[in-house]
């Protein structure tokens, strides 16, 4: 076995695809460039997240966080480089992107997660309904199963969409600013849940604005039209990196050590 590894290092095979920086990665990008038509949105992406790791994707609005997620779900093809991702990522979008006027219950929405595992002519059955209920219980919405999605609070809607991803049972979870607009209790619940999901061996990527929260994650990916940095928080969340990520408009909190915050991008 060792011999074969030694041989393959000495004699590179030109036909074989270039091996990934991190074998066994759940999600990875290698020299990826993303563009809408002629407009390049994000370039020089090279990172890998392994199963069980939680990564924060940090960057300003328009920095390419959502575009990156679209590439990982396969919705957007890279113009250069290689994207490694499972065929179906679990996606938790911002709740504003779903139709709040749709007459569906929380259970209906959670049940949509089962669709990905069914052929298109099959309808979700009793087993799927049970799993959808269990997922809603797990996000703390056992009592809101029959409520209309649009009537729920922003934080509750976010948790319903998380329950949908749980029903989907994907190995990779992509969450787009799941904490924006959440009250503290909801945010803690979601954080705890994400920890559990990572412990189960899922790779979790969270687009966020919150630098302080990113310190608690295993990895941080900073993007601002280009990959600024990638690595553990102690290496990536430095003042120079954050200045490059947020274009220099950084507020340093006096007396808080390395308490560096990006300008507030939201008016929630």
């Amino acid at each position: 076995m060792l011999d074969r590894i030694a041989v393959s290092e000495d004699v590179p095979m030109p036909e074989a695809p270039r091996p990934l920086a991190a074998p066994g990665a759940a999600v990875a990008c290698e020299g990826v460039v993303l563009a809408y038509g002629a407009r390049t949105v994000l370039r020089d992406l090279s990172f890998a997240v392994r199963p069980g790791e939680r990564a924060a994707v940090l960057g300003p609005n328009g920095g390419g966080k959502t575009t990156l997620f679209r590439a990982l779900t396969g919705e957007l093809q890279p113009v250069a480089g290689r994207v490694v991702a499972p065929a179906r990522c679990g996606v938790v979008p911002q709740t504003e992107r779903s139709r709040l006027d749709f007459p569906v219950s929380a259970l209906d929405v959670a049940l949509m997660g089962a669709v990905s595992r069914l052929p298109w002519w099959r309808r979700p059955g009793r087993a799927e309904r049970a799993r959808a209920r269990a997922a809603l219980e797990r996000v703390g919405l056992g009592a809101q199963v029959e409520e209309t999605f649009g009537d729920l609070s922003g934080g509750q809607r976010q948790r319903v969409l998380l329950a949908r991803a749980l029903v989907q049972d994907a190995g990779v979870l992509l969450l787009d600013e799941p904490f924006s607009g959440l009250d503290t209790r909801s945010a803690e619940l979601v954080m705890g849940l994400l920890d559990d999901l990572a412990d189960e061996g899922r790779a979790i990527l969270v687009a966020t604005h919150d630098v302080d929260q990113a310190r608690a994650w295993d990895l941080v990916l900073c993007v601002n039209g280009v990959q600024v940095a990638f690595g553990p928080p102690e290496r990536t969340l430095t003042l120079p990196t954050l200045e490059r990520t947020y274009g220099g408009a950084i507020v340093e909190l006096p007396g808080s050590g390395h308490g560096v915050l990006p300008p507030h991008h939201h008016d929630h």
Partner: protein
Amino acid sequence: MLQALLDPWKEPLNVRALVEVLLLGATGGALGCWIVFYRLAYSAESLAHALLPGLVIAALAGFPLIIGGAAGLVVAAVAVALAGRTPAIGHDTAVAVVVTGLLGLGALLALAPETPARLQELLFGDVLGVTDADLALAAALGAVVLGALVLLHPSLLLVGFDRSSAPALGRAPAVVDVALGVLVALAILVAVQGLGNLLVVAVLVAPAAAARRVTRRVPTMMAAAVAIAVASGIAGLYASFYLDTAGGASIAGALVLAYGAAHAVGGTVRRAAQRSGTFRRRS
């Protein structure tokens, strides 16, 4: 009273019209919910209007109207797709130009002196003139539409609710859009015979819009839309029988009245529920 209710159904002509109304109501009511959710009312109306030249040419050549209608739909869809590609014009304007052009062309053909004067029938339908063959075809197409709606239900729900996440959940929005477009085209073909190409959109939009006002879940909304469509259709036939009004127009009128009633009832129910606190709206 009972006699008055039963009188119209002594004539086979009216019984055939009743069957047609049941078929249109079931197809249009159920499919209409997705037309409302996907905001396709304008597209549906445009397609229905733009197929007039196909109907006229079929009437002139002695072909079955449904074949002319199908050909007209294909031409209209291609013309709209091509016109919509001009970036400076914009999709809505392109649709309006194409539809007006085709409607005008249809009217021109139908009003040419040497052609039989059937324009009115094509524009406003002839629900009392349907034949057994028409009904068989309408039943077959209606069954296809309803069967497809059952199979596609989870996909339609997912894409309609959250288009951006649908690809990650294994449903391509473009495929679902095309499938729905084909179903809308089939439903228009079913309904155009009874209601004509100016009124057909009434049965595709009004029952679903009315049902949306008084229901809070998709399956109940579909059931309500079918019930409203069928009831309005029957009411229209009675009106046509006793008031001697045009069949298609009477049905379209009843559908719009039903929407008005549902709008009023829905508003009242909502306000009452809000007062009593059962209709919560947090955040």
